[in-house]
């Protein structure tokens, strides 16, 4: 690795930093590997990510093995539109009232569901980290103002707040809107966490040393505070992805999710299943499979999150 980066003309300190980063990552991985629950979560998640990335290929392979008449897409009308049909050899999970193959929709649905989870979590993590860093590091009246705003978001009911934002924003339901709504309502916990960590870091001697050497605020935050907060933020964001995926399904459940005729997510598949009276028509898999997918993905994120938390959270590491 070293020879490769040297060829790209990187400076000595950068190389040293990369070497240290690699060493640290390897050390973390060695600890992580011993966490059985964490590994189960990681493997499950990787399977879901692979299936979502290669969704068309997965469908192609399945179609050829099972000898389906064609390779179904999530919006293809493979059956007549009506009330949906129970599972058959050609449609393993049956079809829904749009005449779409439920297996195809489930497989393609993983794409947007995971995407919303990641991006929404990125938005809320970014906001939360920014507020927490600023508030914790500079303190004073800025801290007071930001913390009162954070409190407001913490005390208002989360679902009602999401609904209000979703109705407040212009335009119909879309993926962007869902991401925005989840992001804007989910940052307050992170802000609190980061702030507490920054406040304790700020008083450490290595910060003082850096200050004596003439470092300015911005430099200290960028070089010392942020890298030290980052692992905690990372562990926390894994848990936030899980929450974001759950939020998407809830928003879809109350009909504020993305439009099911143009985008397919597990959340709006459940919405469809309810609209189409899946249970009354005894099409149980239509309702169960997307829900189970959500449970498995959320569970794997939760397992990974707790495993990372045990490694990175200084309060827990002692054990």
């Amino acid at each position, binding site marked *: 690795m070293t020879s490769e980066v040297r060829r790209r003309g990187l400076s000595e300190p950068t190389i040293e930093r990369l070497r240290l980063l690699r060493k640290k990552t390897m050390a973390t991985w060695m600890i992580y590997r011993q966490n*059985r*629950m964490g590994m189960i979560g990681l493997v499950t998640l990787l399977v879901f990510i692979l299936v979502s990335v290669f969704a068309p290929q997965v469908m192609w392979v399945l179609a050829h093995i099972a000898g389906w008449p064609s390779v179904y897409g999530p919006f293809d009308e493979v059956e007549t539109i009506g009330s949906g049909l129970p599972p058959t050899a050609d449609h393993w999970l049956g079809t829904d009232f749009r005449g779409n193959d439920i297996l195809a929709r489930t497989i393609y649905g993983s794409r947007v569901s995971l995407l919303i989870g990641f991006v929404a979590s990125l938005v809320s993590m970014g906001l939360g980290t920014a507020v927490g860093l600023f508030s914790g590091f500079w303190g004073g009246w800025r801290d007071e103002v930001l*913390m*009162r*705003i954070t*409190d*407001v978001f*913490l*005390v*208002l*009911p989360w*679902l*009602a707040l999401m*609904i*209000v934002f979703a*109705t*407040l924003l*212009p335009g119909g339901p879309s993926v962007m809107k869902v991401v925005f709504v989840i992001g804007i309502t989910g940052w307050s916990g992170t802000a609190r966490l980061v702030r507490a960590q920054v406040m304790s870091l700020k008083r450490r001697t290595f910060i003082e040393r850096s200050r004596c050497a003439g470092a300015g605020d911005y430099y200290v935050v960028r070089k010392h505070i942020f890298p030290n907060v980052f692992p905690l933020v990372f562990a926390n964001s894994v848990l936030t992805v*899980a929450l974001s995926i*759950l939020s998407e*399904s*809830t928003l879809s*459940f*109350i009909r504020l999710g993305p439009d099911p005729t143009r985008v397919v997510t597990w959340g709006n598949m*459940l919405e469809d299943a*309810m609209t189409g009276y899946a*249970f009354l028509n005894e099409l*149980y898999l239509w*309702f*169960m499979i997307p*829900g189970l997918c*959500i*449970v*498995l993905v*959320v*569970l794997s994120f*939760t*397992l990974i999150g*707790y495993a990372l938390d045990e490694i990175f959270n200084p*309060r*827990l590491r*002692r*054990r």
Partner: protein
Amino acid sequence: MKAMTRMIVRKALNSVITLFLVIILNFALFRLMPGNPVNAIVPPDPRIPAEYKQHLIEEYGLDDPLYVQFFTYIKDTLLFRFGDSFADPGTSAMSIVLENLRWTLILAGTSSILMIVIGMAIGMAAAWKRGSLFDSGSLAFTLFFYAMPTFWFSMMLIAIFATGLNWFPDSGALTFGTRPEWTWASFVDLIRHLILPAASLTIGAIGEFAIIMRGSLMDVMTEDYITTARAKGLSERDVMRHHAVPNAMLPMVALIAMTLAFVVGGVFQTEIVFSYPGVGYLTIVATYELNYPILQAAFFLIAVTMIVANFVADLLLVMMDPRVSVV
């Protein structure tokens, strides 16, 4: 002691500021929402005369300039008056919210007690038998239900136990059309309607309590005073009961306080799926109807409870753990 008093005063002041911000946001959010509330009161029917609509607009003060509306709103809020519900004129919004609060208290109260007791018991047992089959098994079990979307789990319960097996009713708090009475039959009816939503709430939330209790207890077990207690010759049971568990309760206090807050705030998803007439159900319906008075009354009530619960949790923490007061 002086530092402690100062901190409590500061926290109280912060709570008041937060409450005030909530009140302002409450006003702003619902005026910014699209849609005309008059259309929510009066169905868009051309046969309804324009004068009647005008009369309603004047009666609710919707034609006043925004700042007039704002000051009226602040004054009314401080007097706990949120005006009449748009959906049923003549009934004050606060009285409707309070009526729904009864049901939320029954549902969320029961399940909170259950989830706290069961969650803590599982957490304690898991920490005690750390690394055992029970530890990983109970953790996996509770996390599995914790990962479920609440509405999905609720609907599965309905599908299995209400529609499928027909053991319990699928919606409402009482049999449709009946009022609560102090009779045995009415009580049984209430319990039968309570079991499914309470089960969905409890089972879904046990995981959180179990995990935090387990983590906290294992944290405490590494402290020196536990070693001291053991060295004194105390049995493992006594060490747990008198030294470990009381100290491990600290992080639980905050969690329990927040749970009690949601007892009032209502449990949106469960109440919607089961059509349980609590505050959560009322709020969601009001959001769709653009029923501002109800929304404002509900938001206000929920925010006040959350703020008070937060404050009490902070106070309890300071009283229980002198180390905290340094912050």
